[in-house]
């Protein structure tokens, strides 16, 4: 799956999904190769468990195989669609786990340091993906730690602002402001990425 001709995850061709709609197994295989590392990384970040991340990825790709016809380019790039689907299903599992009384997520002090722990090159990504990872990583680390934490608790742990406020023992307004400011700054910093067509 890791070949020199591998396409960047951030720029998966929508035509690939169109081929999958027609039952093209080769296209489905390519889609997996282009996206599985990122989706697995995301699933593991949310669930914190390899076995559960494996199961989640199976669910996601099978759902893509069955429902790929519902993909609409007007609503986002293929990878944005896959990320949204993966995150949503992972948060579902997280909540189901919470209902069962199991441990939810990583400890708080590990959340911020978990992302962008390694900015060095990875053998599983293209140069374009690596550059994007560094750009996003730098943008996130440039935020104040409190803003990073609030955004990650919402995005990766699926917590609402009320839940975050209770968890951090902070006023609700403070939490909202942290998320708004953080997202706003990321928007300004990363706008170049989607204007170049990487995502959006």
């Amino acid at each position, binding site marked *: 799956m890791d070949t020199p001709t591998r396409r960047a995850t951030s720029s998966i061709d929508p035509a690939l999904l169109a081929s999958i709609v027609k039952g093209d197994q080769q296209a*489905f*295989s390519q889609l997996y190769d282009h996206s*599985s590392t990122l989706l697995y990384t995301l699933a593991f970040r949310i669930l914190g468990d390899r076995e559960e991340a494996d199961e989640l990825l199976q669910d996601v790709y099978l759902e893509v195989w069955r429902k790929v016809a519902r993909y609409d380019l007007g609503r986002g790039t293929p*990878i*944005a669609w896959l990320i949204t689907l993966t995150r949503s299903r992972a948060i579902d599992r997280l*909540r189901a786990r919470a209902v069962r009384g199991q441990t939810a997520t990583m400890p708080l002090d590990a959340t911020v340091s978990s992302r962008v722990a390694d900015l060095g090159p990875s053998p599983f990504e293209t140069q374009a993906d690596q550059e994007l990872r560094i750009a996003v990583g730098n*943008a996130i680390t440039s935020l104040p730690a409190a803003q990073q934490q609030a*955004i990650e608790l919402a995005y990766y742990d699926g917590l*609402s602002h009320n839940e975050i406020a209770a968890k951090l023992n902070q006023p609700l307004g403070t939490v909202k402001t942290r998320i708004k400011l953080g997202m706003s700054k990321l928007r300004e910093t990363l706008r170049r990425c989607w204007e170049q067509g990487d*995502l959006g």
Partner: protein
Amino acid sequence: MTHEELEEAVPLYAAGALDRVERQALEAHLLSGCQSCHSALKEYQSVASLLPFGLSPKQAPRALKSKIMAARNQDPMTVDGLLKDPGRRSLEPGEWMNHLFPPIAPARSLSLPWAIGVATVLLVSLGGYFAWTYTTRVSEDTLKIQQLEAALQDQSAKIANLKRDLGLRDRSMAELQVDVQRKMNDVIELKSQLMEREVELESTREQLTAVTRGKVPQDEFATLLRQPDAKVVTLAASDMAKGASGVLLYNPVTQKVWLYSANLPECPAGTAYQLWAIDQKPVSIGTFHIDAGEMAHLLVKRMPDFEKTRKFAVSLEPAGGRPQPSGPIYLAGQRAF
């Protein structure tokens, strides 16, 4: 929620941090067609989609791909069966995008024992189906009503904002009108002052003219006295005016004669003195009047033909003068050559 509050909720929505009620309110607002919130949401969702790119990559197990490919090739019903019950579905960041992924219906498969019991449970199933349909419709209607209520609230907030803006504009318009009226009054006041100043200026001009008018003869007389070519003719008094005298000066540059008379008797009513230049025949130079108590008088007249004239005389004539002397002579003199 006001539009400002909804707008501020967009980044929280994209990050997945909104509660269900807030999420629904924002979605209703988006459905109402707010372009600015749409654009902002698109960008914030792009930000959210970029976040996983910042994570340290972790490769999926190699066996996973073949597992997925194999599962995909199985009977679709079985494939569905592989999907675990997701429990409480998450629809953020936003049902907006996740409309693509409606909650997965639980997989259904009919086994033979179940098929045997179909006839007996048919009525119960139908009843359940209708109840479920009804409940679903009610839920959908409730959701629509909530969305409409949120949209209505949003529109009401917009109307309230517009009314407030209108009120502010009315107030500023009224202030402007008062200001304009004040300026108009100032202009009227200034015009009035200008007219007063013009009257004063006119008055000053008249005074200046009067002063100038009085000054000119004096200046001319001073010039005349310094003029070396000036001619002088002494006029002697006749018996009619004993004690009177007269001097006549002529300035060849200005061609004016100056008659200075002293001690002439007061003119009776309806009469005036008339100065005559006498060459072949008398020619009137001008008339003047001596009032009661007036001791001296200066008469200045233009006289181009002075050089031809030998004699000069002053007679008392009816007011306004006569073409030829008709009254008694009071002063008379002759030029010396």
